[in-house]
């Protein structure tokens, strides 16, 4: 019997014949924390008496509170900077960007095992890395031992065929899937993406889809490493990090879910759960006070290009705040070179420094009581954006840009 991507990677990294349901000890190729989980990890690590197994593959990211809105968080940043200096591990500073985007740009390789103290660590699955979120204790162990224990997940094969219609994007696909299987529909599972739609999908789109695997409860969201992956790594100056990786044709899947891409329409998650989906056109008339385009889910150049093409030369609706948060410094620079940032600023948008922005309610766009926001982020839980009396809708950059122009949730096909 052949192996799924999860089984292949965990076999390679554990030296065992890893099969779904097995518990294995696997080598960890990259371990990281960010500034809201890092201080607890660093303190736990320091009290454990261990030393770093691989300082050059241990990264501390300052991205969630960037720049810091308070003295307390600034002090947390000092703790991370000090630890990096003392231990020799890598520090990614305020303004560099969101951890998941930088892991994709600079660190993740097909076939890697990656653990991060952030649930959206799954993003690197777009590159064929077994990347999963863990808490501070587990990441402490990965820091100190360079390995950890994993239960080899069962796999759902997600087979997507056909072509996206105009106005439909990978974000709509993943929101549709989560709406279909539910926020716990894939708990503990690996979601493995197959089909001709997936083969044609850009790396940017793959990262968006992998990023949200955890919103269905999944442990990883995995893509084969193919020519698209190779070209992406070469463009990042990391061609040597490429290795082809695909599941065996006779791998055993717990179930197969088929999706016809031709049938998908712009999709939106309604408050307060990601699986509470509807079509954008069904929500017409839902007034918005804020639109956010960015984050680790949809803050890449391709996302900003789509949004800029809709917004260029126009103005957001009266009273609507449009916030753009590029996922990394690289993305910001390229968006400047391409003229997207000028388009956004001329249209009246605010540009945030690369980082998590208002996604998790720390700063830079906290919502007021009763306010509605449409965001390209990945989570719309009650209180997520800093106020439990506010309401968050999730959609693609195209839906977000179109909605910014009209001031209400809008199917992007209506404005383009």
């Amino acid at each position, binding site marked *: 019997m052949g192996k799924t991507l999860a089984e292949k990677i965990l076999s390679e990294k554990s030296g065992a014949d890893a099969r779904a349901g097995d*518990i*294995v*000890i696997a080598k960890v190729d990259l371990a990281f924390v960010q500034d*809201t*989980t890092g*201080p*607890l990890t660093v303190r*736990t690590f320091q*009290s*454990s*008496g*261990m030393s770093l197994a691989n300082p050059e593959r241990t990264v501390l990211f300052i991205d*969630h*509170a960037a720049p810091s*809105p*308070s003295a*307390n*968080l600034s*002090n*947390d940043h000092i*703790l991370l900077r000090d630890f990096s200096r003392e231990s020799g591990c890598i520090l990614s500073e305020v303004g560099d960007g969101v951890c998941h985007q930088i892991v994709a740009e600079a660190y993740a390789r097909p076939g890697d095992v990656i653990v*991060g*103290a*952030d*649930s959206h*660590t799954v993003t690197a699955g777009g590159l064929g890395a077994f990347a999963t*979120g*863990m*808490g*501070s*204790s*587990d990441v*402490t*162990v990965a820091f*100190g*031992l360079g*390995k*950890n*224990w994993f*239960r080899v997940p069962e796999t759902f094969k997600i087979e997507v065929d056909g072509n996206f219609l105009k106005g439909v994007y990978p974000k709509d696909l993943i929101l549709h899937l989560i709406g279909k299987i539910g*926020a*716990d529909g894939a*708990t*503990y599972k690996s979601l493995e993406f197959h089909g001709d739609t997936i083969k044609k999908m850009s790396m940017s789109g793959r990262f968006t889809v992998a990023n949200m695997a955890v919103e269905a*409860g999944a*442990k990883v969201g995995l893509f084969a490493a193919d020519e698209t992956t190779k070209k992406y790594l070469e463009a990042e100056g990391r061609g040597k990090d490429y290795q082809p990786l695909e599941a065996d044709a006779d791998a055993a899947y717990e179930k197969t879910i088929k999706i016809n891409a031709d049938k998908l329409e712009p999709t939106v998650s309604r408050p307060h*759960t990601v699986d509470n989906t509807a079509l954008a056109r069904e929500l017409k008339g839902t007034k918005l006070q804020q639109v956010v385009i960015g984050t680790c889910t949809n803050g890449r150049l391709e996302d900003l290009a789509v949004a800029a093409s809709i917004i260029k030369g126009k103005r957001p609706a009266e009273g609507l705040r449009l916030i753009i948060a590029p996922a990394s410094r690289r993305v910001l620079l390229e968006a400047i070179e391409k003229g997207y940032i000028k388009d956004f600023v001329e249209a009246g948008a605010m540009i945030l420094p690369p980082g998590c922005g208002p996604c*998790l*309610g*720390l700063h830079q766009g*906290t919502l007021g009581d009763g306010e509605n926001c449409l965001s390209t982020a990945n*989570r719309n*839980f*009650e*209180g*997520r954006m*800093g*106020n*439990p009396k506010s309401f968050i809708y999730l959609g693609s950059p195209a839906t977000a840009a179109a909605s910014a122009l009209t001031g209400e949730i809008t199917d992007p096909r209506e404005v383009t």
Partner: protein
Amino acid sequence: MLKGRAHKFGDGISTDHIIPGRYAHLRSDLPELAKHVLEDADVNFAKKVKHGDFVVGGSNFGLGSSREHAPLVIKMAGVSTVLAKSVARIFFRNAINLGLPVLICDTDRIDDGDELEVDLAAGTVKDLTTGEKLTFGKIPGVMLKILNEGGLIPYIQKHGDIKV
């Protein structure tokens, strides 16, 4: 034998309900952070909860973030055990890693305020208020070993390595 009162919550209690992101600035001041435990699910929880009580959730308890602060503030509130119909993956591992048991059972049969008696070894929950007796699913072997050592870091300190 663990004995205490049930604090009942619904389905889909997220890590943002348990410890909202807006309190991220308190994460290096754990006693202060813990005052906000489960605030967005029940604003009075921190005042009501007593040492030895149980948090009783519905399905997919603890979904969302990897923040270990979520099970940590529940533990700091004195809660001995979390019971739920199902639990999100990262929260489950985090809780066990901190020595906080999470037991999977049919929590629809437990009401808010019921007195419970949990026998970890026997795998049973007795609802002393209703007389109902429930059984909970086994904690996987490796996690049980970690739990029995009081958490992952104490386990590593004792054994010097992780074994399965």
